[in-house]
C-alpha cells in the first residue's frame, strides 16, 4: 500500500500492516554528534511560554488548581476548543476549553470526583451528579465484590494505593499510529478484526472482545471529531513534521480527555518525529529553529496537562504528576542506537522552556550509546535534575527495541502490551503484623492468620522467617485476588477505549504488583539475624517496639550478608504472587517503587527492629534507609543493583542525590564522572536511577522560601516533581535523605 503523504520514506512491511517499529527501523537516521547543532528558543516560543509561566503562577496562587469545569464530564468532544495563544500556537488542542482548567472524570468513581472538587472549593454540579446517579462507576463495581478481608487489608494500609476509585492508567497507546496511518486506516483494521471475531463461537471472552472493539472504533471516530473541532483532518496520514507531531498529540490528548489514569505516559515518540523532521529539512520546508519550535510547542502542551485529584491521592502521589513519560535513546536490535537529533531536541526543551518535571524524560541507557549523547544527558542531569535513567541493556532482550516506560519504571512493548496497575503492599507493616500474630497495632485491627504473639525475649531469626513466610503467602494471594476484582471492574465500567484502539487487538497483559519498605524490612531482618532484638510489649501483650543491641550490617553498604536478604525477599514475594492466577491471564510482575508514598507508608507503620521509629518515613523505592550508608555512593548503588530484574520486571527504583562538588571539580569532569557512574551501575545490571545533582542547602532554602524557587525540580521515586508542589512532610523527607558528599 502507498499513500501520497509517505513519499520519500523507505518502504517496508509497515505499509501493509500496522507496524510503527518497522517504519522507524527503515527510516530513522542515527546521530553520533554532540549538542552543538541545537537551536535556542525563538521569540514565538518565548511569548507562548511566558503566558504559560504566568498561568502556572496563578495556579500556584490558587492553591494548586486554577479552575474546574464542574458542569461537564470530560470526554473527547465535550469541550469547545481551547488555546493558550491561538495566533502563535503550532500544535493545538487542550483538555478543556481553557489552559489549566481541569475537567471532571467520574467514570472511576463519582465520590472521588465530588471530593476532588470540594478539596479546591468547588462543588460538582447537580447535572453531573444526576447523570451518574444511575450509572455504575468502576469504584461502585469494585466495592460490590470486595470481600471483608480485602476491605480490611485496604483500611489498615497493608495494601495501599489500589486503583479502585480512580483510573488505573499505566497504559500507553501507540499514539504514533495516528500520525503514520491516519485514523481511517486504524478503523478499517479494527473493523476487520471485529469481523474475524464474529466468525467464532460466542463465549464471554469473544463477546467482550467484540464489544471492546466496538468501543475502540467508536472512540477513533470521536478522535476525528475532536481534531476537526481544531480544524484538523486526522483521517489520513500526516504529511509533514508539524502534522506528525500534531496527529500524535491529538491521539494522546484524546486519551487524557477520556481517562484520568494515574500515569498517562507518552511512549517513544522523538525518534519517530525525527524521521518527519529530517524529511522536511531535506525538502527545505523546515529549519533547525523551526524543528525545535515544533518540539517546544508539543512539550508546552504536555506541561499543561492536568488531572483533578483528591487530597488522599496527593498524599500517595505528590506533586500533581501525570507521568507523561517519554523514553529517549536506547539501542536497536541491529546494533544501531536509536539516538537521533530529535533525541537531543526533546532534551533541549529543558533549556528552551526551562527545567520541569513533565514530561517525565527517561533515558534508555546502554553502554553502547554514542558517547556524545551520554555526555549531553549527564549535562542535562547536572543542570536540571529533571531526567531519569533506565537500563536498556537488561530491558531490550525482553521487550525488543520499541518498548516504552509507563509511569516511572514499567516497561512494555508499545501497542503490544498493556499493564494492570496495582499499587503496592507494605512489607514492613506485614512483618509487624506477623510478629503480633495477625494484629496491626497502628490500626487496632486483626487481620491475616490469627495466632499468638511471637515468643522469646530475643527474636530468633529462623522463627521470625518461618512466621513471616506464612504471612507473605497469605497477603500475596489476597493481593492478587484484590487486583483481579479491580481490573475486572475497570474493564467493565471504565475501559480505556481510545488507548486500546491504539494497541493491537490481541495484546499481552502484565499485572504489576509492588512492595514498599524493602530496605526497612531488610535491615530489620538483618538486625534480628546479626544483633539482638528484644521486643517491647504493651499492656495488652502486643509488641509495640524493639530494643536492638549490637551491630548489624545494613542495606546500602555493598555487604552481601544483608543485601542477600533484600534479594531473597523480592524473590519470595514474586514467587508467592505467581501462585494465584490473574484476571485475563496477565503476567505477574513486581516493582520496588513507592512514588512519594514512602512517607505515608511510614506514617502508618509502627517502630521496626532496624531502629526506625513509629511513624517515620521509609526510604523511597529500593533505596537504602537514609544515612545508614558508610562506604559512599557506589557501595549504595551496588547494593541496590543486586536486586534481580528477573524478579522485579516492573522495575527497581533508586533515587540518587549527590552534591556537585562531590561529582568532580570542573563541569567537564562532572559530566565524565556521571557517565562513568551510570555505565558502572547499569553494567551491574541495575534497573533504574533518578539523578539529583544539588546541595541540600538549596532544598532548605526552597523549603523556607518557596516563592524564590518556583521552578526547582527534583527527582523523587521514578518521576520528577516541582519541589514546591510536595507537602511539607514530603519536603522534609526529601531533605533528610542521604546526599552523597565528600568532606
Amino acid at each position, binding site marked *: 500500500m502507498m499513500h501520497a503523504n509517505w513519499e520519500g520514506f523507505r518502504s517496508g512491511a509497515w505499509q501493509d500492516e500496522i507496524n510503527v517499529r518497522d517504519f522507524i527501523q527503515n527510516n530513522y537516521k542515527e546521530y553520533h554528534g554532540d549538542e552543538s547543532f541545537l537551536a535556542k528558543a525563538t521569540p514565538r516560543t518565548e511569548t507562548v511560554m511566558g503566558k504559560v509561566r504566568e498561568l502556572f503562577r496563578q495556579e500556584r496562587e490558587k492553591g494548586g488548581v486554577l479552575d474546574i469545569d464542574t458542569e461537564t464530564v470530560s470526554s473527547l468532544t465535550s469541550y469547545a476548543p481551547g488555546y493558550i495563544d491561538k495566533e502563535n500556537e503550532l500544535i493545538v488542542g487542550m483538555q478543556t476549553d481553557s489552559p489549566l482548567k481541569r475537567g471532571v472524570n467520574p467514570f472511576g468513581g463519582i465520590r472521588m470526583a465530588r471530593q476532588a472538587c470540594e478539596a479546591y472549593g468547588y462543588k460538582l454540579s447537580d447535572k453531573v451528579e444526576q447523570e451518574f446517579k444511575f450509572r455504575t462507576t468502576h469504584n461502585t463495581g469494585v466495592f460490590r465484590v470486595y470481600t471483608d478481608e480485602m476491605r480490611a487489608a485496604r483500611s489498615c494500609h497493608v495494601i495501599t494505593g489500589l486503583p479502585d476509585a480512580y483510573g488505573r492508567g499505566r497504559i500507553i497507546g501507540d499514539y504514533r499510529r495516528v500520525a503514520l496511518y491516519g485514523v481511517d486506516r486504524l478503523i478499517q483494521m479494527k473493523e476487520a478484526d471485529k469481523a474475524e471475531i464474529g466468525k467464532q463461537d460466542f463465549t464471554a471472552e469473544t463477546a467482550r472482545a467484540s464489544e471492546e472493539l466496538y468501543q475502540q472504533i467508536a472512540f477513533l471516530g470521536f478522535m476525528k471529531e475532536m481534531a476537526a473541532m481544531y480544524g484538523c483532518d486526522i483521517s489520513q496520514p500526516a504529511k509533514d513534521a508539524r502534522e506528525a507531531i500534531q496527529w500524535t498529540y491529538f491521539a494522546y490528548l484524546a486519551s487524557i480527555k477520556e481517562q484520568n489514569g494515574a500515569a498517562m505516559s507518552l511512549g517513544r515518540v522523538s525518534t519517530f518525529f525525527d524521521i518527519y523532521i529530517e524529511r522536511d529539512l531535506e525538502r527545505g520546508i523546515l529549519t533547525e529553529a523551526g524543528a525545535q519550535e515544533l518540539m517546544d510547542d508539543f512539550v508546552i502542551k504536555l506541561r499543561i496537562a492536568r488531572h483533578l485529584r483528591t487530597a488522599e491521592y496527593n498524599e500517595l502521589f505528590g506533586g500533581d504528576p501525570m507521568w507523561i513519560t517519554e523514553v529517549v535513546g536506547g539501542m536497536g536490535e541491529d546494533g544501531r542506537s536509536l539516538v537521533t537529533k530529535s533525541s537531543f531536541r526533546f532534551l533541549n526543551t529543558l533549556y528552551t522552556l526551562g527545567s520541569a518535571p513533565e514530561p517525565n524524560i527517561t533515558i534508555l541507557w546502554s553502554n553502547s550509546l554514542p558517547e556524545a549523547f551520554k555526555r549531553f544527558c549527564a549535562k542535562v542531569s547536572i543542570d536540571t535534575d529533571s531526567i531519569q535513567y533506565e537500563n536498556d541493556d537488561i530491558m531490550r532482550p525482553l521487550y525488543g527495541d520499541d518498548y516504552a516506560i509507563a509511569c516511572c519504571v514499567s516497561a512494555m512493548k508499545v501497542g503490544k502490551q498493556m499493564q494492570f496497575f496495582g499499587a503496592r503492599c507494605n512489607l514492613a507493616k506485614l512483618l509487624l503484623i506477623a510478629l503480633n500474630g495477625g494484629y496491626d497495632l497502628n490500626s487496632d485491627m486483626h487481620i491475616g492468620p490469627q495466632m499468638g504473639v511471637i515468643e522469646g525475649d530475643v527474636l530468633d531469626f529462623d522463627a521470625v522467617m518461618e512466621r513471616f513466610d506464612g504471612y507473605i503467602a497469605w497477603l500475596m494471594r489476597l493481593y492478587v485476588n484484590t487486583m483481579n476484582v479491580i481490573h475486572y471492574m475497570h474493564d467493565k465500567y471504565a475501559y480505556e477505549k481510545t488507548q486500546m484502539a491504539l494497541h493491537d487487538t490481541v495484546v499481552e497483559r502484565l499485572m504489576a504488583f509492588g512492595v514498599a519498605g524493602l530496605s526497612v524490612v531488610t535491615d530489620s531482618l538483618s538486625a534480628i539475624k546479626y544483633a539482638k532484638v528484644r521486643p517491647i510489649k504493651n499492656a495488652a501483650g502486643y509488641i509495640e517496639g524493639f530494643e536492638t543491641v549490637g551491630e548489624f550490617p545494613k542495606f546500602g553498604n*555493598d555487604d552481601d550478608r544483608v543485601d542477600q536478604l533484600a534479594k531473597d525477599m523480592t524473590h519470595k514475594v514474586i514467587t508467592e504472587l505467581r501462585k494465584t492466577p490473574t484476571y485475563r491471564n496477565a503476567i505477574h510482575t513486581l516493582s520496588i517503587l513507592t512514588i512519594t508514598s514512602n512517607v505515608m507508608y511510614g506514617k502508618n507503620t509502627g517502630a521496626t527492629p532496624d531502629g526506625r521509629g513509629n511513624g517515620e518515613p521509609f526510604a523511597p523505592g529500593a533505596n537504602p534507609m537514609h544515612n545508614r550508608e*558508610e*562506604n*559512599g*555512593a*557506589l*557501595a*549504595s548503588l*551496588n547494593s541496590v543493583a543486586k536486586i534481580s530484574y528477573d524478579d522485579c520486571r516492573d522495575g527497581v527504583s533508586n533515587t540518587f542525590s*549527590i552534591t556537585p562538588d*562531590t*561529582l*568532580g*571539580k570542573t563541569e567537564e*569532569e*562532572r559530566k*565524565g*564522572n556521571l*557517565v*562513568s*557512574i551510570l*555505565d*558502572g*551501575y547499569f*553494567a*551491574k545490571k541495575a534497573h533504574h536511577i533518578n539523578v539529583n545533582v544539588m546541595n541540600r542547602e538549596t532544598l532548605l532554602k526552597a523549603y523556607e522560601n518557596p516563592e524564590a524557587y518556583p521552578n526547582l525540580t527534583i527527582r523523587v521515586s521514578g518521576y520528577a516533581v516541582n519541589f514546591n508542589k510536595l507537602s511539607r512532610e514530603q519536603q522534609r523527607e526529601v531533605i533528610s535523605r542521604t546526599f*552523597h558528599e*565528600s*568532606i
Partner: protein
Amino acid sequence: MLRIHSIQSLGTLDGPGVRFVVFLQGCPLRCKCCHNPDTWDMRGGETLPVDELARRAARYKEYFGAEGGITVSGGEPLLQAAEVYELFARCKAQGIHTCLDTSGSLMNESVERLLAVTDRVLLDVKYTDDADYRAHVGCSLQPVLDFLARLNEREIPTILRQVIIPTLNDSVQNMERLCRIRDAHPCVDKVELLPFRKLCQSKYDALSIPFPLADVPEPDREIMSRLTALL
C-alpha cells in the same frame, strides 16, 4: 593487613575519573593545616586483610571507565608501603589503575617496590620553602624533593598538590617556586591548588586537640583563581 581509617566508594577528587579511595590510618607528620587529625594515630582505625580490600575495590571496576581506579590516601600510605604494594599489585593484576596520594616524606625499599606498581602519584607539596616546611610541618622539605626526583626517574605521572592557606603559602613567590619544581620534573603533568578548609574543626574538637589554624581565614574564590592563573 592494612590499617585503614575509612573507605569512600565514590571518590572523584583524588585522582582522575571515578575512584575507590582507601584512607589509611596513621601519619608521621603533624601539619598545622591537617584536615584529618583522626588519621594520625597509628593504633587507631581498623585492620583489613589486603585480599579483602582488593576484592572490594574490584567490585567497583565497572564504574572506573577509562580513567578511574583505586586511590590509596591517608594518613600517610608510605607508612604501610609493603602492604600497599600487595594491594596495588593485586589491583593491577585485575587491570585497575592505581594512584597513590602521599606527602612523599619517606623512602625505603618497600616504597621503591610500591612505586613499581603505582600508575600515578598525587604528591602533596605542602610548602615550597624548607623554612616554611620545617615551621608548619615539623621536618625538612628535602625528602619530598628526593621523592619527586625518584618519581621523575621512574616516569610516574604525577600531580603536585598544594593546600593554599592564606598568610602561609598564598604568595606569588610560593607559586613561582612551585612552578620551578614542576618545570624541573617532566613527570609532573598537573598542579592542583586546593583551598584550605576549616570543616575539620569538629574533628579537632572531638579529639580535644587544638586546631592550630583556627584563626586563619579560608581563601576565597578570588585568591584561588588569582594563584591558579600564576601556574
